[in-house]
Every structure is written in C-alpha cells, then in structure tokens.
C-alpha cells in the first residue's frame, strides 16, 4: 500500500510517502513561500527520491483544513485530481487532527489551533484514548478568549499545539497557568508523516465530494444569509 500525503493547509508545506504504516520519505518546509509553485515539484522530487512512479500510488491523503483558504484549495485540488486521474481513493483529514499527533503520548486534552485573525482561531479539542485520537469538542472558528474560558472550567491539563502559538502564548498562560502545557518549536509543526498515519484508518471520501474544511462561510455568503434572515423577520 503506497500512500502519498499532502499538506498545504497552512504555512508548512508537507509531503510524505508511506508504505503501509511505514513513512519512507518526508519533505517539509516551514516558510511563507508559495505553495502553488512548490507543491508539485516537491511531490515529484520525493517520489523520485524513493523511486516511486505515480501509477504505483494506492491512496492519497490530504490535509483538508482548516487553514488558509487558498492553501487548503491547492492541496485538495491537487489531491482530488491526482486521485481521480489515477483512479485511487482520496482521504481528507482535518489539519487540526494532524497537529494533535504531536501530542500522541500526552494524557490530557489537546488544543490544536490555527490563527484566524482578529482574536479568532480555528480549533477543536482532542484526546488520545486507547491509542485513538478522539474529538472532545467539535472543530470551530471561535474567539480564543472563549476557548480559554471553556478550558478554565475543566480540571485537566491542556497541551497547546499551533504554528501560531506565539500570538496567544501569554493569554493561554494567563488563563490556565500551570495547567497549560506549551512545548518547544518543533512540536507546533504539523508533519506529513502523521497526516499519512491519520488517514490510513479513515474511510475514503467520494472523490468528487471531498471539499475543504473551511470552518467558515465566505464573507459574502455570511452577509447574504444574514440579510435573508433579517428580511424574513421584517417581512
């Protein structure tokens, strides 16, 4: 079982190749450089390195967000189209879930997040139970303030994982004190090898139906829906 995993959902560009559970190659950069230009060359390079041809692939796994809308679309478009062309299954995995793999041996609650500007984050809560990553609360686009308030009410330790940790480090420590666990730099970077593992056990998505996990409506759509609602209540 040869698997290609692709993550361009945030600043990290990650590509990995797995043979079953074994990661045989991984390519990662954590730079604010153009994913569109660099993704396919990265895939080509890694596959060449491990002497694999496109038709040798059995499955494609992609980080479907949340994250940068554009970044997520680059990954998902590439993954879907490749899977369709090669007639192999494609699996979308939450980008937050991938990050949670960095807390594989952590006992408490894991809070992976990506900054979504203006105090908002894309986040969810996860916990490892019986070697499985389980959601504690559903992924949402919400104010970090509210996330921390919710966490304050609980008694467990919380592991925070995020490439944007610097923005909220102070607020987290203030809210949770000793209960907040914030590791060093490398732990905040999602790994494409983990993405591969995360997707391994998931059911394939119907290729056409796989869509990014934006966690947020397009602004125009949100405004439109709001206007519709107002019209209804006035009409």
């Amino acid at each position, binding site marked *: 079982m040869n698997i290609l995993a692709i993550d361009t959902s945030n600043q990290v560009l990650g590509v990995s190749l797995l043979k079953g559970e074994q990661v045989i190659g991984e390519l990662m950069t954590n730079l604010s450089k*153009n994913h*569109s*230009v*660099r*993704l*396919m*060359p990265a*895939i*080509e390079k890694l596959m060449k390195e491990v002497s694999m041809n*496109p038709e040798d692939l059995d499955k494609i796994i992609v980080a479907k967000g949340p994250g940068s*809308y*554009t970044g997520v*679309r*680059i990954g*998902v*478009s*590439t*993954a*879907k*189209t*490749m899977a*369709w*062309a*090669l007639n192999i299954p494609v699996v979308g995995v939450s980008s937050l879930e991938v990050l949670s793999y960095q807390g594989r041996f952590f006992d408490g609650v894991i809070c992976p997040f990506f900054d979504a500007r203006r105090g908002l984050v894309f986040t969810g809560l996860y916990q490892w139970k019986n070697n499985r990553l389980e959601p504690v609360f559903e992924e949402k686009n919400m104010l970090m303030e509210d996330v921390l308030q919710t966490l304050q009410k609980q008694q467990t330790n919380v592991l925070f994982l995020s490439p944007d940790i610097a923005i909220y480090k102070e607020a987290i420590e203030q809210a949770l004190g000793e209960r907040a666990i914030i590791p060093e730099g490398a732990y905040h970077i999602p790994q494409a090898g983990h993405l591969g593992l995360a997707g391994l056990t998931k059911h394939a998505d119907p*290729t*056409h139906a796989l*869509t*990014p996990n*934006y966690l947020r409506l*397009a*602004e*125009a*759509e949100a405004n*439109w829906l709001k206007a519709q609602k107002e019209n209804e209540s006035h009409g």
Partner: protein
Amino acid sequence: MKKDTIILGIETSCDETAVSIVRNGTEIMTNVVASQIESHKRFGGVVPEIASRHHVEQMTVVLEKAFENTDITWDEVDAIAVTEGPGLVGALLVGVNSAKALSFAKQKPLVGVHHIAGHIYANRLEKEFEFPLLALIVSGGHTELVLMREHGSYELIGETRDDAAGEAYDKVARMLNLPYPGGPHIDQLAAIGEETIAFPRAWLEEGSYDFSFSGLKSAVINKIHNAKQRGETLKNEDIAASFQASVVEVLTAKTLKAAKAYNVKQVIVAGGVAANKGLRRELETVFSETDIPLLIPDIKLCTDNAAMIAAAGTIAFEQGRRSGLDLNANASLQLK
C-alpha cells in the same frame, strides 16, 4: 500521415469550471462547462472566494463528464493546457493545480495558456486563421484589440484604460435595477429603445486604439441622477439604447480603423460581449462594406470555455512551449 494532436484544456479563470478536449486545434471532441452564475446572482456579481470554492467542488466532476462525452482516451492525449492568467487568482489556482496534478499523474506535458489567447483561438474551432488578423476581445474583464501576424504571436494594439466594456454594461444595468449579469438585459432593452440621449464617445487621442468606458458610465449616472432631481422620467429602454450606441460606435469604429491600418485578412470578435446583438449587427454592417471577413464564433464559444484554451494550447504545444510543474496562476499575466 501526420499524427493528430489531442489537447485537454482546463479553464477556471472566473466563474466557469470548464474542461474540453480538442483535436488538431480545430475540432471539439468534448466541451463541458459548469457555470456558477446561479450562485453568484444573489450577490450581483462574481464573488472571488465563492468562485474558488465552487471550482474545487466541480473540477473532477467536469473532468469526468468531459471523458464520458468522447471516445478519446488518456493514451491519446498529447498535453494538458490550462489558463494560467489573467483572471481571479484563487479561481485560476484551482485549474492550474489540477492541471499540474493531471500532468504529473498521467505523465503528460503541461502548457500554460493566456486567457485572451484562448478567446481568440475559439474562432479557429470554426474557421482557419488567415494572417495578419485582428481580434477584438470584449468581455466583463477585457476590452482589447490584438494583432496576430502568425500563430502564437500576439501584439496588443489597444486596450481599455479603465473599465472593461462588459463591466460598464454590468454597472449601468445595476443603475437600471436589472438583474445580474446585466449585459443581455441592456441589449434587450436597447433593441426596443431609441437613442434619445447623446452620451459621450471616448475616442481618446488621435490614432489611439485604446478604450475608456468610465466617462460614459459616469455620464449615465449623472443623467439618471439629474433627471430624478428635476422630476423627469427617462425611459430605461432609451437609456439602454443610448448607452449601447456609444459603446458600440467606439468599439466598431476603432476595430474598423485598426483592421484597415494593419491590412488584416480577418477580423475576429471574441469574449462574452461578442454575444451582444447590437454590437454584432453594427460590426456586421460596417464590415460588410469592406472586403475584410468578420468572424464571430457561436455564443457557446464566445463565453468562457475550455475548448478555446485547448485550441490555443495546441498551437503553443506544437510550437514547443512547455510549462513546468512549478507553473503558477498569474492574475495579471501579459499577452505575449
């Protein structure tokens, strides 16, 4: 016997997700267009983020449909052509990245195509080119005069300095409370109205083939505004007729002048506004008095589609042009 050249085209520069396969740059084997217009109507125009989202949803569906409609197999496809620009960057990115994924997965060469080159080559799907030729491209995003002396060579001799013609149509339509897209509605109204208002014609400086429609657009706004203040009522159909007369006169006159100056053997009209009946009629009248043939493709080929990208891509492919897997979307790509 020369082998056929089979090119798969992909177009996602605005609000249509399109895939087509074209043989030898002249024969459409399959041509699928998924339009998002219904989704954008409620916003009164194309919303880039929403367009990009729809493209991701539609891309593989449209690809599959394209192959369902033809006997052509992947083995026969020589290359993949994709619109690299200009257009909405987020929308372009979906097409470009999908094209690169296909190119890699199927190990086929990749050719980036300029959207306007595509619009011009839509004509070659109906009639072979004769050079030099002049192309007038009019759409929501473009108003350009392009001179071609040979295949794959494009000289921009005139372009809009502000709004595109189609943009002016949409804005005027909005003032008249016509639904989006406004162009066809103005065209319909103009057909029953009369040119009662003398709107300005933007000829610009002597000898220029450039266009400008923002002054005209302001003149229409002022006219409506002033009439309202004075309690006069202007007939919408007369406003439409007067506005359209100004646009059509300038487009036609400049095209005719350029066609004569460059001694062209063909004049091609392309882009969504080429479907405008008023414009067609005037161009046909004017060119029927010359011996320069005027070509306006079928409406399906005037609006955005991927057959035109495959057709332009065929020439680029035959001329040896190739794009790498690092091809990017370029929202402001220049026509060269």
